């Protein structure tokens, strides 16, 4: 299925997928999660090799470099002009036959594995950039995600859209500090194709309190329906702060929800749909589900050895799925701030406390 030594397509449960740079940051992490036994929806990645093969076969590789070089330092109007012209070229370009065959084959196999007919399996098609971790900064929001895609033809169309997304104005002008232009100039992209979870509720969770940096907490944010509402900021999520040691829910901020992201049956596309009356004011997660999620988050953090930012979904049946995992980037790069105002012996601290001096310089506010 490949014309070179490296594959066009890698299943995320393929042992070779673990740690492979071919899957980009996002999908590489999911391969690692899958191998570790976490409940990741099945899928495959269309590798960075496939992307480069596409550019080369379509004769667009040189043009890509030129567009990037020209966009650097250009004004926004010019960048937009360059971007729309080149993305149109990508979307119009023919898919090389070897690649098309590999993608159609993998999609059919995924559909078969999931028990759906080969025309019916709904998948998410999303970008997974090679350089997502280049500067330790998250490329979150810079790349595309297409939900509820059905049928191989549509998958192929959206794979090209993801590739075209590499030349969107935001990516062309994105310049994280300390990132060598050279490294960015030629970075590749993997496109992940993954079975959709029909989420009853979904959201994100952090294995530390993102506001205070308190590592003894897991903060879960969730809403009814697909997680796009939480990730994209379109829906105010409910928030649960959970003690990571005892699993007690120490704070809950419920947010009533009138509409949720879901599949509109009329158009068969993802959009805002009304939330059932009886669910609007109800919490989108039962306490037992929060407990399951938090224990999952804790295991993922232990497995990955550092605080994580996790996208999750819970199906109508109550099954919990891990949709995405990435290292927490804000507190990881901040210098740890000492809590104790002045180091003292324990007795020294207590004596000072009786004189009205606190042990710490102040509470972590949250």
């Amino acid at each position, binding site marked *: 299925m490949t014309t070179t030594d490296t594959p066009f397509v890698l299943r995320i449960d393929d042992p070779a997928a673990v740690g492979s740079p071919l899957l980009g940051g996002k999908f590489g992490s999911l391969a690692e999660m899958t191998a570790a036994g976490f409940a990741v929806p099945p899928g495959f990645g269309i590798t960075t090799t496939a992307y480069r093969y596409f550019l080369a076969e379509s004769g667009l590789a040189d043009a890509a470099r030129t567009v990037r070089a020209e966009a650097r330092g250009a004004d926004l109007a010019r960048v937009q002009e360059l971007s729309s012209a080149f993305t149109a070229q990508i979307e119009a370009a023919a898919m090389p036959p070897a690649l098309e065959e590999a993608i159609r084959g993998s999609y059919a196999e995924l559909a078969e594995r999931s028990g759906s007919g080969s025309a019916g399996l709904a998948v998410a098609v999303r970008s997974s950039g090679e350089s997502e971790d280049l500067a330790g900064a998250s490329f979150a929001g810079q790349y595309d995600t297409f939900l509820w895609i059905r049928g191989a033809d549509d998958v192929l169309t959206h794979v090209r859209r993801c590739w075209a997304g590499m030349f969107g104005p935001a990516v062309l002008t994105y310049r994280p500090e300390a990132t060598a232009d050279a490294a960015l100039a030629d970075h590749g992209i993997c496109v992940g194709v993954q079975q959709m979870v029909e989420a009853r509720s979904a959201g994100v969770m952090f294995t530390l309190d993102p506001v205070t940096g308190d590592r003894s907490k897991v903060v879960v944010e969730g809403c009814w329906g697909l997680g796009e509402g939480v990730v994209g900021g379109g829906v105010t999520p409910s928030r649960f702060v959970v003690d990571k040691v005892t699993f*007690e829910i120490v704070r809950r901020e419920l947010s009533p929800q009138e509409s949720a992201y879901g599949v509109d049956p009329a158009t068969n596309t993802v959009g805002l749909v009304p939330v059932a009356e009886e669910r609007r004011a109800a919490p989108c997660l039962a306490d037992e589900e929060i407990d399951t999620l938090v224990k999952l988050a804790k295991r993922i953090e232990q497995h990955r050895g550092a605080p994580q930012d996790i996208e999750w979904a819970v199906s109508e049946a109550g099954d919990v799925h891990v949709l995405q995992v990435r290292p927490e980037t804000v507190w990881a790069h901040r210098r740890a701030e000492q809590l104790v105002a002045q180091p003292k012996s*324990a007795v020294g*601290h207590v*004596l000072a*406390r009786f004189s009205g001096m*606190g042990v710490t310089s102040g509470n972590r506010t949250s």
Partner: protein
Amino acid sequence: MTLTSPDPSSAPIEPAQAVPGKRFASPFAVTTPPGAEGWESMYPYYALLSKERAEFEDGKFWFFDGMHNPEPLYPFDTIMTENWWVAVSQMSTRVWPIPLAGGIDHRIINGYLYISPNAVTDPDAIAARAEDFGVRAGHYYENWDEIYEQWVAKATDCIERLKEIRFAPLPDKEPESAVFSHRGLYSSYDLLTKYSELIHNMFEMGSYHFEMLNLGYGAYLTFREFCQAAFPGITDQTIASMVSGIDIMLFRPDDEVRALARLAVELGLTEQVLGNEDPAAAIAAIAAQPAGGAWVEAFEKAKDPWFWFSTGAGYQHSDRAWIDDLRLPFTALRGYVKNLLDGQDIARPLEAILAERVRVTDEYRTYLPTDADRESFDGLVALARQVFPFVENHNFYVEHWHHSMFWSKVRELGDVFVAHGFLDDREDIFYLHRNEIYSALYDLNIGWATGTEARGVTYWRPEVERRRRIRDVLKANPPQPALGVPPEYITEPLTVMLWGINQESVQEWLGSEGKDPNQLNGVAASAGKATGRARVILDPEQLHEVEDGDILVCRITAPSWAPVFSRLGAAVSDVGGIMAHTAIVCREYGLPAVVGTGFATTTIRTGQLIEVDGSNGVVRVLEDVNS
């Protein structure tokens, strides 16, 4: 007291009323309920409000000490409150002194005890006190284990001497031994001195009570504040679980009952245990069995000291101990025997509890940001664990073992008054203040010595009746949780830790407009949610009415209520902080609990359907009794 009837018109002309959100009613605005006129005569003059100190008394913040004294005080029982009025206060002011905290003032209002902590605010005074405090308290912390060992020896010796004090009616004729020993002292003298000995024995234990307590609480409080700053939202029971012991004495009585249940099963005595609700009948039935002797022997051994276990906080004579009323331990015994016959393991999972304590502590430690923080955490958790055996065990020595025995000795003296015709019932002695008893004993001696009828024979019966009527009226009129003007800050460690009184609870009591009348807020003491029928318990006697799934609503619970805890769905109390006696046993039973609600027993009625949210400290009335 009868000698010092105060002027009932001692109030300022226009006492201030409560202003929601700002101040509570002036203590002088509290009116005497009809029928309780003259209640002041039951109490010593120094415990009453007065015209001469009205300005000072009106400007202070007074809160009702329902935790220790949920009911109007019996005149005799003021010995407990008067004891700690001095014993707690002197530690803060004269012994250490504590830099920020002064003594705690007391007043009795309509029979209820109100207290008011004094704060030290002058920076120079705080600095000077801090210097002495560092040296003196430092000495205690540095030598804690050794001093605690000495403390146990002192407390045990004090209890041994209490046990030796016995009261008997005076003899018709002095025995020959009194004559031929040439002692020159007779029963009348011994009665007076033994009474003095009893009172001073109480004050002795009362002083030991507070020798180390503030320091113990302070060390724990410091650790708690560190945890709350490092891990915002961490619950009190989690913090306590990192330091509390697993072999503390308060668990011993229940452990003894478990052991007796196992022995009953081993010896084939389950039929006798389960077939007799009445403890005396059960013991008799067991003793009649061939193997029964061994069980009765084990039971007698367990009883002393472990059944000197109060059903209340121990501060009132009405807090009966297991040893006085065996129904509670026998209820527990039957439960454990049933569990054993069902094949259940009734042992407390000590190893698991200990392993969990290690896991929880280690894990929080790893989540601290820096090594310096971890070092402070290590030191504070070690110090808190070092002081905790005293903090937890002093309860058993003082409130349970000593005080329960003390009340039983006072009853013995009550029998003397009954024998000499002063009183109809031994319990009536509690309507006399301790100093009145000294007078009454002298009166008794006069009657005995002269052969003339003592004045007390006709004096005390009607007086006791009058006082009983007044007290019954006062009891039917529950007190307000607080009076006067609340302070800006509450720093006194005992107030915060023992009574659960802090800025938030004061604000809650002050009230705000638009409050949901069906909702009470308090301290989230034990996580979880439960719904059930309310069972309002104002007297430990009512505990026997508790049915499975009931939600206990009380002023404050006592650890010895443990046998009914297993039947409860949840618990709600008016008062109590994180270190109140209740908290220790509640943790063990894992019941949802909200404490420090202020008004639960006065707003919730038995039979109402209520919901207790122990995670958020909220109690809701869902359905009234009649619907």
